[in-house]
């Protein structure tokens, strides 16, 4: 973007051209008050404009044409479009104007929708599925030749060309959706990327590009609206954002900065959980569900260095210091790794123990092989032998007997294969029956729990036979049918002995394993205690722990992407838990420290030619150095993602810049999360993750499931022999490819539904189509097996072979004709329990048990067992033929509920609450204490109640009532008197209170005050009269002269002394005096008398026309001068009366005495009042006539004080000068 500059490098206001849709310019917009541009990185630019309707009383020619869908062109900046009708405002002052926001021209891509848009989905509508791009396999399936990459620079129109445009995502969009937009520079690294899958139902093109594609390929789109060209850059390309030489600080352009934490709150502790309740981290986190991160809070000085050091040592001990993990190999690791390793060992022993306890034949043992042909049977033998080998290979390095697959291994080895071979033998020999492979008495197939159950069963039978007399003969009389029953008896005895032998063999192993488990458990507990923050080794004091606790802010962290499943083996679960721990630790590292965002305002550098060297670098996406106050340089440099400035009204200097959020973790920062995933906001109790890793984890789980299905497919023929014989390494590689593919596949889809779909390998098989379209991506060697497998899956789906795991072929009466023999031989004879849906299953024939063996249904009995094999709940018919429902306690023996109902042991203290007892069901005889009986209304007779002293309460109550009544009346009467008295007192108070009413009052000095108020008032009045008399004295002095018609007004200094009881007015005679006639004196006196604000202290008459008064006001001392013309007695002839000087508080302000020459209208200074301070304790107020030279100057002393204290004393109101 370049702005307009003149030849002298001065920025000029931008010209905004109005254009009709389709870039048809019609003229330059005039009357624009402001045009504010906000340029954004990977987002639409905004242009906010205000335009006046009138120009100098003439109509703005293009004003009416400024409406929606019109376009705006700004030279060197770009094209914009007005998307909605402008807002028009009519001000009270008559001004009419429109405001509108136009958006950069790529906004027209928001108008174009992608509907049913599929890329690399392998479905028919997917863009890569064109005739020339796949090969028919001959079985109706297709094999894709090439899938869609990001962009083909030199595209071809030839469908047979590898550069055909339909093989490039951007090419497809350009041809069909981008309209006039062209593709410009495309990051070469980006262009060749293949395989991203998109399945869009309905979405606009712009958001698809800037959100879906941008996130999937980690790229940004730059729309050059001038040339209508789209440039695309990957995160690693230079154009994505480059480091610049722009360095902003307060010494050059920076005005202000706003620094915020992107988090609403900081957390230092997570309680961690995965996708389900079972996925928690104690097994990899020293037994704790929580993790802490106090690095930041400790590093920023919130605690002292000693505590920081202790905490560092604590963390180092847990996660830094290396210890020996394996004494034999010498492998080392942290204590956390040691803890995890011990957990793994614990898990391994637990697996072995469980296997020994819970072992049971798998369902294959019940297969009916008679329905199979010889050829099929032989294939089955091969198949199961392969599975045996595979199981051994899968557990390479581990004794198969120590794995949970041992039951399956034994079942196949000892039951399934012998059964098939027996059936083959039967078929080959033409025998009627095949040798029966009895699994019921093959004790090696069973674990301890099942053996104990079976032993009980057989022992019951033995006991029964014995009780019935079929056991060892006790006498000569044998019961009927003794021989046969005795044989059965002996058989049962043998079974019991065999079972005992089997138990005797297993039990020590279990006990050994339990010892190992106990030892490991103990080691784990020791390690937990060893690494606990409370361990003395770390030296945390109670105070330390309180401080750390104050810094601990906890929230829940859930990473639903990581979820352990029941189908996961124990080791894989631990791997997932470690991953969960790492995920949480990283997020806590982010959450525990502020993630700063920066917004700045700065001078508009585009208007400053001194900074022209920065113009080219000042582009969106580039990195800028920002130095704040105190030389604080933000590092790394910040990426500029938005700036706003005024284009027309250049007097508006506002220039704002926004930077991307850099997420800092483990000392590194990047803004990819901000750019591609949106802001990572968090709120209390709800920090969670659901993308990225989750997909990966889900893909991994799905891959496991799919491959497991493949492993156990039993009816695949020789066509899939390759995968049967694939070794474990190949399978591992295969799984890797699978995970990769699934990760891509899942990215753009609803996760849960897709995973379920994949794991079931259902035949609608969008995933199979996807795999078909994607197989090219995988490394050839690793993927060959899968490719072959996929072909076979296709074969299966085409109907040639049925597979137990692929059951979702959609068959209808219209497209399928089923031969009767198919039903008879192919279905009916092969049908197994797992195939049945809604039929009756005889539990005499099928023993139902859960995978863990904790639920067992057999015959008429259903049992629930605990982990130790103890029957905790049993319901149904027992060996005696009695029906019962038994619930036992934790010890397995205490019956909580038996055939007689609930037992006393089942009722814990406090268990039975009131509401559990039926209303009206508790009778008197059920209570072991006497009950007070009521009448039919529930009332209790008072005659049955005693007063506690042997007397009858009823009689005592009557006496009490009478006494209370009497006492109450007495109180009432008394209160009436008091009330009347109070009324009286009230009235006295309310009417008046006189001093004389108060006979004795106590002052604050504890003295009695009787009539002091009156006395004081009297004294006050006396003093007031004295003051009045003093004022009259002044008047008297003025009047009492020898000549009653004239008065000699002495130039006297007056002083007023406020004594304790009166004012004293003193006059000091001055050296000059003037005599005036009585009228004038009268006028003075009149003024004196009429002046209510204060007292005239002294009056001096300097000339015939000038009178100066020293006037003591209520809060001010004034020197007033009154000038008269001709007749001073005529008050109307007063020329002017003004204050010459004022003394207020400590401030004495002297105003110059101005003489006014009426003729020339000129003024001159004639004199002034001055405080003359001869020394620090002598003050004189004098009048200085400045019209004469200093030598003859007449200085009139008006006031004189010999000390400051004297002054204050005489003018106590003012507190001194």
């Amino acid at each position, binding site marked *: 973007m370049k702005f307009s500059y003149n030849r002298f490098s001065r920025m000029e206001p931008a010209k905004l051209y109005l254009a009709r849709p389709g870039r048809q310019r019609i003229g330059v917009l005039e009357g624009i008050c402001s045009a504010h541009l906000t340029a954004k990185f990977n987002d639409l630019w905004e242009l906010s404009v205000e335009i006046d309707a009138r120009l100098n009383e003439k109509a703005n020619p293009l004003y009416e044409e400024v409406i929606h869908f019109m376009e705006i062109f700004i030279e060197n900046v770009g094209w914009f479009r007005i998307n909605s009708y402008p807002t028009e405002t009519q001000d009270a002052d008559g001004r009419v104007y429109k405001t509108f926001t136009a958006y950069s021209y790529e906004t027209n891509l928001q108008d174009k929708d992608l509907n049913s848009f599929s890329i690399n989905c392998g479905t028919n509508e997917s863009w890569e599925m064109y005739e020339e791009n796949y090969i028919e396999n001959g079985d109706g399936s297709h094999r894709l030749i090439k899938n869609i990459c990001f962009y083909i620079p030199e595209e071809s129109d030839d469908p047979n060309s590898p550069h055909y445009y339909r093989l490039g995502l951007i090419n497809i969009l350009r041809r069909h959706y981008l309209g006039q937009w062209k593709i410009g520079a495309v990051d070469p690294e980006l262009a060749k990327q293949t395989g991203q899958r998109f399945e869009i139902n309905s979405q606009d093109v712009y958001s698809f590009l800037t959100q879906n594609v941008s996130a999937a390929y980690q790229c940004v789109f730059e729309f050059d609206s001038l040339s209508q060209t789209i440039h695309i850059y990957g995160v690693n390309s230079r154009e994505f954002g480059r480091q610049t*030489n722009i360095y902003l600080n307060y010494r050059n352009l920076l005005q202000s900065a706003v620094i915020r934490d992107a988090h609403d709150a900081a957390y230092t502790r997570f309680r961690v959980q995965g996708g389900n309740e079972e996925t928690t981290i104690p097994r990899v986190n020293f037994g704790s569900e929580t993790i802490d991160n106090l690095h930041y809070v400790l590093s920023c000085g919130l605690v002292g260095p000693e505590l920081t050091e202790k905490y560092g040592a604590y963390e180092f001990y847990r996660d830094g210091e290396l210890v020996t993990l394996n004494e034999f190999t010498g492998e080392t690791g942290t204590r956390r790794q040691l803890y995890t390793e011990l957990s793994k060992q614990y898990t391994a022993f637990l697996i072995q123990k469980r296997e020994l306890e819970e072992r049971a034949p798998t369902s294959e043992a019940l297969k009916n092989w008679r329905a199979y042909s010889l050829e099929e049977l032989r294939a089955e033998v091969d198949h199961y032998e392969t599975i045996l080998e595979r199981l051994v290979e899968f557990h390479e390095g581990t004794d198969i007997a120590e794995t949970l697959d041992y039951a399956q291994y034994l079942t196949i080895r000892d039951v399934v294969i012998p059964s098939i071979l027996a059936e083959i033998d039967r078929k080959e020999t033409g025998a009627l029956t095949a040798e029966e492979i009895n699994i019921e008495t093959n004790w090696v197939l069973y674990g301890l729990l099942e053996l104990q159950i079976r032993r009980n069963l057989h022992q019951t039978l033995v006991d029964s036979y014995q009780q019935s007399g079929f056991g060892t003969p006790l006498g000569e009389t044998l019961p009927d049918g003794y021989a046969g029953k005795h044989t059965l008896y002996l058989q049962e005895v043998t079974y019991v002995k065999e079972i005992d032998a089997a138990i005797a063999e297993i039990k020590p192993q279990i006990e050994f394993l339990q010892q190992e488990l106990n030892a490991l458990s103990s080691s784990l507990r020791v390690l937990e205690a060893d690494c606990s923050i409370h361990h003395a080794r770390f030296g945390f004091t109670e105070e330390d722990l309180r401080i750390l606790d104050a810094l601990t802010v906890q929230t829940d962290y859930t990473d639903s992407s990581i979820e352990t499943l029941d189908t996961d083996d124990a080791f894989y679960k631990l791997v997932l838990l470690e991953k969960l721990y790492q995920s949480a630790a990283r997020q806590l590292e982010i959450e525990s420290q502020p993630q700063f965002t920066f917004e700045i305002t700065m001078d508009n550098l585009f208007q400053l030619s001194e900074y022209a*060297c*920065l113009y080219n670098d000042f582009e969106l996406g580039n990195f800028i150095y920002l130095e704040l106050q105190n030389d604080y340089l933000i590092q790394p440099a910040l990426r500029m993602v938005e700036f706003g400035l005024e284009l027309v009204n250049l007097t508006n200097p506002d220039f704002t810049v926004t930077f991307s959020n850099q997420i800092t973790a483990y000392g590194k920062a990047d803004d990819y999360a901000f750019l591609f995933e949106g802001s990572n906001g968090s709120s209390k109790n709800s920090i969670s993750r659901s993308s990225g890793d989750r997909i990966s984890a889900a893909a991994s789980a799905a891959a496991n499931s799919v491959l497991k299905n493949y492993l156990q497919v039993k009816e695949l023929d020789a066509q899939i022999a390759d995968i049967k014989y694939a070794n474990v390494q190949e399978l591992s590689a295969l799984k890797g490819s699978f995970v990769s593919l699934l990760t891509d596949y899942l990215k753009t889809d609803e996760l849960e539904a897709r995973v379920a779909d994949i794991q079931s390998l259902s035949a609608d098989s969008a995933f199979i189509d996807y795999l078909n379209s994607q197989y090219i991506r995988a490394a050839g060697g690793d993927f060959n097996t899968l490719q072959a497998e996929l072909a076979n899956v296709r074969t299966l789906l085409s109907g040639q072979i049925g597979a137990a795991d692929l059951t979702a072929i959609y068959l209808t009466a219209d497209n399928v004709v089923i031969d009767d023999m198919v039903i008879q031989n192919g279905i009916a004879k092969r049908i197994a329990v797992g195939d049945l849906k809604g039929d009756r299953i005889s539990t005499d024939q099928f023993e139902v048990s859960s995978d863990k063996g904790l639920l067992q249904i057999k015959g008429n009995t259903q049992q629930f067992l605990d982990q130790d094999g103890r029957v905790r709940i049993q319901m149904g018919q027992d060996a005696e033929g009695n029906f019962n429902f038994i619930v036992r306690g934790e010890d397995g023996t205490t019956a909580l509920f038996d055939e007689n109902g609930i037992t006393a042991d089942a009722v814990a203290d406090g268990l039975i609450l009131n509401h559990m007892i039926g209303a009206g069901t508790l009778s008197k005889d059920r209570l072991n204490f006497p009950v007070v009986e009521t009448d039919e209304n529930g009332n209790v007779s008072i005659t049955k109640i005693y007063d506690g002293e042997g007397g009858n309460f009823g009689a005592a109550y009557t006496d009490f009532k009478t006494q209370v009544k009497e006492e109450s009346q007495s109180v009432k009467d008394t209160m009436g008197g008091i009330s009347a008295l109070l009324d009286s007192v009230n009235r006295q108070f309310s009417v008046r209170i006189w001093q004389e009413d108060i006979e004795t009052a106590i002052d604050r000095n504890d003295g009695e005050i009787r009539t002091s108020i009156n006395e004081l008032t009297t004294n006050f009045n006396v003093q007031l009269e004295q003051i009045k008399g003093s004022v009259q004295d002044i008047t008297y002095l003025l009047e009492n002269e020898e000549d009653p018609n004239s008065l000699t007004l002495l130039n006297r200094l007056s002083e007023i002394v406020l004594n304790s009881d009166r004012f004293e007015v003193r006059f000091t005679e001055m050296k000059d005096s003037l005599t005036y006639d009585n009228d004038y004196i009268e006028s003075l006196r009149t003024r004196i008398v009429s002046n209510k604000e204060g007292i005239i202290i002294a009056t001096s008459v300097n000339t015939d026309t000038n009178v100066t008064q020293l006037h003591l006001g209520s809060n001010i001392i004034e020197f007033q001068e009154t000038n008269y013309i001709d007749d001073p007695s005529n008050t109307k002839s007063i020329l002017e009366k003004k204050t010459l000087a004022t003394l207020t508080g400590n401030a004495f302000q002297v105003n110059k005495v101005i003489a006014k020459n009426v003729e020339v209208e000129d003024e001159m200074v004639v004199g002034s009042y001055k405080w003359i301070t001869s020394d620090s304790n002598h003050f004189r107020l004098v009048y200085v006539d400045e019209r004469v030279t200093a030598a003859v100057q007449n200085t009139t002393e008006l006031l004189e004080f010999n000390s400051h204290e004297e002054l204050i004393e005489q003018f106590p109101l003012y507190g001194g000068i």
Partner: protein
Amino acid sequence: MAIYGQYFTYDGRTLDTSYILVSLEPKNTTAATGLGRTIRKGEISPFRPVPNFYGTQYSDVLIFDFSIIRTDGNPFTQAETRDLNAWLTSPNSPRKFILKDYGGCDVHENLEYFGLISDHSAFVPDMAPCALNFTFTCSSPYPHAAEEIITADVTGTQTIELNNTSDEYEWDYYPFVELTAHESGFVTINNETLDLGCEYKVYAGQRLMIDNARCTITDSFTAPDLHLFRFEDDFNLCWLRLAHGLNRVTVRGNCTCVFKCRYPRKAGI
């Protein structure tokens, strides 16, 4: 009216001797200096009679008026008016203004003002322009000394002394540095007085214009727009500055360093 100065030079042009610089103020006894400052201080409260002080900032840049009259006392012709006005009011960015004192006065000696004419009027008794009045707004609150240029041809290590004579005692001065590399490698400029080290990765023939005040570095290695110098890789993001008084600056590398300093002067108008 008083004679302000003999002549001045502005934007590279000197006032012709047929004119003279005067002040038309009848009683020009007070002159603004531009050094008025706003004291940034906190509140006085009943409990805090002594407020907190946060420093100062100049209230404004230096602004002063002057007038030009013809030395012969005649009014200006239109051509003269146009010429003078155009010259003085055209610049859009601050330009150098040097005033030559009248007589033996040294008020403006060795001072350089940078600024623009911000206001203009004419004294027109009898409807003839006898004087042209200008208001000059400086780019700073004070003038500056003439630019000091210190050149150091460095092979290996060389220490030079830069004397910061700025009248701003409590502000460091950020000099302009032209660095011409004679061989590829690192050049370091250390102000030992301030314990400050600036490091530049340069290529033989490369010439860096380091504006430490504005925090820009331009590279004239090849084409003007081709900036090979990259902050990210070639610079330790340290800007050279000088404390008031003598600074011991050590340059290491094989290069020519030209230090350009124009120190503030709190004198003159």
